[in-house]
C-alpha cells in the first residue's frame, strides 16, 4: 500500500464535509476522485496536501503517518486548479523554484529546469513570463514545477477544467506519458466523468462527503452499486429497481416486445430516441450507421434489464 487514508473526517463549522473516508492507492496508480461540486473531493485533496487540519483519521504515505506534518514537510506536490503560478517569475524560474529548498546549486537547477522544459514540450519558453502563456502551456508549467522536485505523490485539483476540449484530450495523454517517464503516483479530483474515464485506473465516486463506490471505470458503468452511482454516471432508464442503459435497448427485426418511436434527436455519431414501451418512456441510442427510425413507427425491442 503506497498511500492509505484511514477514517478521514473534516468539519467546517460543525458541518461534516468529509465523513469517515477510507481508501488506499498502489504505487504508480492514477486514481480519480469523482463527484458533484460540494461532495468533499477537494477537501480530501487539501487534507492529503497538508493545507488544512483534519478532525479525525490518518494519512499514511509509504508506511509513515503524515497527517501531523506541515505541507512543506510532506513529499507531495500539488497542481492547483488555477495553477498558482508566480506571475512575477519567468517560466524557468517558476519551474526550478522548488529546487531552491533542496540545496540544488543554481547552475544544476537551470540545467534540470531546461530538461523539464524539453520533456513538457516547452523548449524555448524558459525566459517567457508565465502571464504570456496560454492556458495549456501554463498547465504544463505548473506540472513541471511540481514534478521537478520528484514528489512521491502528485495531487491535481480539477486539472483540465480551464482547458478547451481539444487541449483536454492532449493533456490527458500528456499525464499518462508523464506517469511512464517519472514513475509517479497521481491522485486527481474532477467533476467531469470523461476526464475520470479517460485516464484513471480506478475511480473513487463521492457524494455528500461519503464514498459511494471505488471501482474501475468499466465496473462503475456496468455495475453501479447505488442509485447515485447509476444516475451520476452516464444515462439510464430506471424502472422499479431495475435499470437499462440507452444503448442496451436493441431493435430486433422479429420477435421481441412491441414499442413505439415518440421522438428523435440527431446527436452526431448517434441518434437519441424516446420510445414508449408498456406506457413508460425510455431513452434509446442507436449508432448512425444503422437505419434511421421514423417517429410514430412501431418497433420490436429487446432490453437487458439489470438490478440496481
Amino acid at each position, binding site marked *: 500500500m503506497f498511500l492509505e487514508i484511514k477514517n478521514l473526517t473534516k468539519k467546517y463549522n460543525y458541518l461534516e464535509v468529509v465523513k469517515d473516508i477510507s481508501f488506499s492507492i498502489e504505487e504508480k496508480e492514477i486514481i480519480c476522485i469523482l463527484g458533484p461540486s460540494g461532495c468533499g473531493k477537494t477537501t480530501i485533496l487539501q487534507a492529503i496536501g497538508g*493545507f488544512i487540519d483534519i478532525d479525525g483519521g490518518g494519512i499514511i504515505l509509504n508506511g509513515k503517518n503524515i497527517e501531523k506534518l506541515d505541507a512543506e514537510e510532506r513529499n507531495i*506536490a*500539488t497542481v492547483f486548479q*488555477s*495553477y*498558482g503560478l508566480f506571475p512575477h517569475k519567468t517560466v524557468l524560474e517558476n519551474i526550478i523554484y522548488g529546487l531552491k*529548498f533542496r540545496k540544488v546549486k543554481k547552475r544544476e537547477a537551470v540545467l534540470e529546469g531546461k530538461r523539464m522544459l524539453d520533456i513538457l514540450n516547452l523548449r524555448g519558453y524558459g525566459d517567457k513570463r508565465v502571464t504570456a502563456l496560454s492556458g495549456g502551456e501554463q498547465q504544463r508549467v505548473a506540472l513541471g514545477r511540481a514534478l521537478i522536485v520528484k514528489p512521491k505523490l502528485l495531487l491535481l485539483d480539477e486539472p483540465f477544467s480551464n482547458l478547451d476540449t481539444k487541449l483536454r484530450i492532449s493533456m490527458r495523454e500528456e499525464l499518462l506519458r508523464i506517469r511512464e517517464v517519472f514513475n509517479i503516483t497521481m491522485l486527481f479530483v474532477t467533476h467531469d466523468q470523461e476526464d475520470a474515464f479517460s485516464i484513471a485506473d480506478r475511480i473513487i465516486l463521492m457524494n455528500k462527503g461519503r464514498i459511494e463506490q471505488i471501482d474501475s471505470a468499466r465496473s462503475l458503468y456496468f455495475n453501479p452499486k447505488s442509485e447515485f452511482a447509476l444516475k451520476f454516471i452516464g444515462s439510464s432508464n430506471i424502472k422499479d429497481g431495475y435499470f437499462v442503459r440507452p444503448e442496451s435497448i436493441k431493435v430486433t427485426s422479429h420477435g421481441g416486445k412491441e414499442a413505439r418511436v415518440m421522438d428523435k434527436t440527431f446527436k452526431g455519431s448517434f441518434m437519441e430516441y424516446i420510445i414508449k414501451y408498456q406506457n413508460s418512456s425510455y431513452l434509446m441510442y442507436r449508432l448512425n450507421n444503422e437505419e434511421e427510425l421514423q417517429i410514430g413507427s412501431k418497433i420490436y425491442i429487446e432490453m437487458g434489464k439489470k438490478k440496481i
Partner: protein
Amino acid sequence: MGVRKKTLDFLDLAFKLLVAMVVLVFVLYPFVAVFGKALYRNGRLNFSEFLFLKGELFLVKNSIVSATLTAFLSTLFALSIGLMTFFASSRQRKIIMFILLLTMVSPPFIGSLTYIELFGRNGLITKQILKLSINPYGLWGIVSVQTLGFTSLNAVLLMGYLDAFDNTMIESARSLKANTTSILLDIVIPIIRPAIAVSFLLSFIRSMADFSSPMIIGGAYNTLATEAYLSIIAKGNSPRASAMSIILFIPSILVFLVYTYFSKQEQRASKSSRDTKGELKKTGLYYAIMVLAFFFILWVIIQYSAIFLAAFTDKYKGDTYFTFENIINSIPYLKDSFIRSILYSIIAGILSSLIGLILSYYSYIKNIKYMRVLDFISNMPYIVPGTFFGLGYIFAFNKWPLELTGTGLIVILNLIFRQIPMSIRTIQNSMTQIEKATLNSAKDLGAHSLDILKDVVFPMTYSGLFLSFSNAFISSMTTIGSIIFLVYPSKKLATLVLFDLVSSGKYKLASVLSVVIIIICLSVSLLSYRILNRGRENVS
C-alpha cells in the same frame, strides 16, 4: 414623446455644459492662477521669485529628507501590518482595521499634540517616566508624527492588495517545501511590489505637502511647505508662496506619473477562498514583522489614550484627576466652528459625489472624449499640495465676476473640488460592475441617456456614491491645508480652531476638540460601513 425627448436632450446638454464649466472654473483656473502669480509680473514672464532656490536650497533639501524618511518608515510599518493581517484571523483583522481607522479619521497634525505631551520637554514618557529632558522638536519629531499619520492609509492600501492575493501561489510554494521567510521574500513581497511603491510615493507627496506637523513640531527645521505657509501668513508675500508651491508641485507630478505607471501594473489576481491560510510556520521574518506591527499598534494606542486622557483629566499639585472642566472650557471653541464644519462637510460630500457621478457617467460610461479630458483635469487637486490648491482659490476668486474671498462659499467650493478626484475614483470603481449589455438593453428598450443615468447607473453605483460621500465628509472634516488661507477669522472651521489651539500650546482644550472630531468622523465611517454591508447582504 417628442416634447419629452426635446426636454431631456436639453437637460443632457445643460448637464454637460455645467460639469465642463465647474471643472474648468473651479479646478483648472485656480491651478493656472498660481502659475500666473509666480511667473508673471507687470505682464511679463519673470523668474525672480524662484531665486530663493539659490539662497534657501536647504528648504528643498529639508523637505526631501523628511519626506524620504517618512515615506520609508510609514511604508515599512504599513507592510508589516499588512503582512501581519495576512496571517491573522478575521476577528483580529477587524480590531486592527478599527485602530487604523482611528488614525485615518483624525486631523493630520493630531500626532503632534500627543507627541509633545508624551515626548516633549515636560512629556509624560520622557520627563516623568524616563527622567530625560530632550528636545522633541526637529526632523525626527516631524518624521515620527507624519509616520504615525500616514501609515494607516498605506496599510489599508496594502491589505486591499493582499486580500486579492491568489492563495494557491502560497500553497504551491509550500508544497515545494518553501519556508515562511522564502514565501514572503520570493512570492508575496515581489508580487505586491507595485502597491509598496505606490504607498511609498503617496506618503512622500503627502509629507512634502504637509505644513501643519512641521509648523508645530519642526522647531527650527523649516521645509518648503512651512515656508510657503509663513510667506502668506506672516509676510503676505503671495508670489513667493506661489513659487514655493510650484517647486513642491514638481515632485508631486513626477510621483503621480510613476504612481499611474505602477497602478497599471496591478496584478489582477483571482480571489480565492482563504480557508486554508493562516497556518504558515512562524519563523524568522514572521517575528520581525510582528515586532514592527505591534510596535506601531502600541504607539497608536498610547497616543490615542493620551488624547482621551488629556481631554478628561487635569493636574493639581502633581496629582492627576478626572474632570469635565476641559469640556466645559472648550464649548466656546466648539460651538460655531463645529456646526459650520459639519454643515460644510455634508454639502461638500453630497456635491462632490453628485458632480463625480455626472462627470463619470459622461467620461467613463459614455466615453465622450472631451469629458475624458475634464476627468483628467479634475484629478489635479489630488496631485497638488493642499496649500497650492488653496492659494489658487485666493488668486482666482478675488475680483469681479467671481469675488468670493472672505465668503463661506469659497471654502465650500474648495472642499467640494478638493474631494472630486477621490469621488471620481470611488464612483468609477463601482461603475466597473455595470455591464455594457445592461446599458445597451436599457437603450434598446427606448431609455434616453438621462433615463439610463437615473434608472440604471444611479442605483447601480449607489454603494460607490455612499462611500464617496462618507470619504469626502471625513476628509473635509479633517482637512486643513487647502482651506487655511480661505477661511475668514470669524468663520473658522473645527480643524483650524484645533490647529490654533495646538500652536498656542492649549493642549487640554485641543484634546477635547480632537476627541469630538474623531468621534464625529468615526461615527460617520462606521455608520456608512454598516449601511453598505447591510446593502450587500440584501443583494446576496
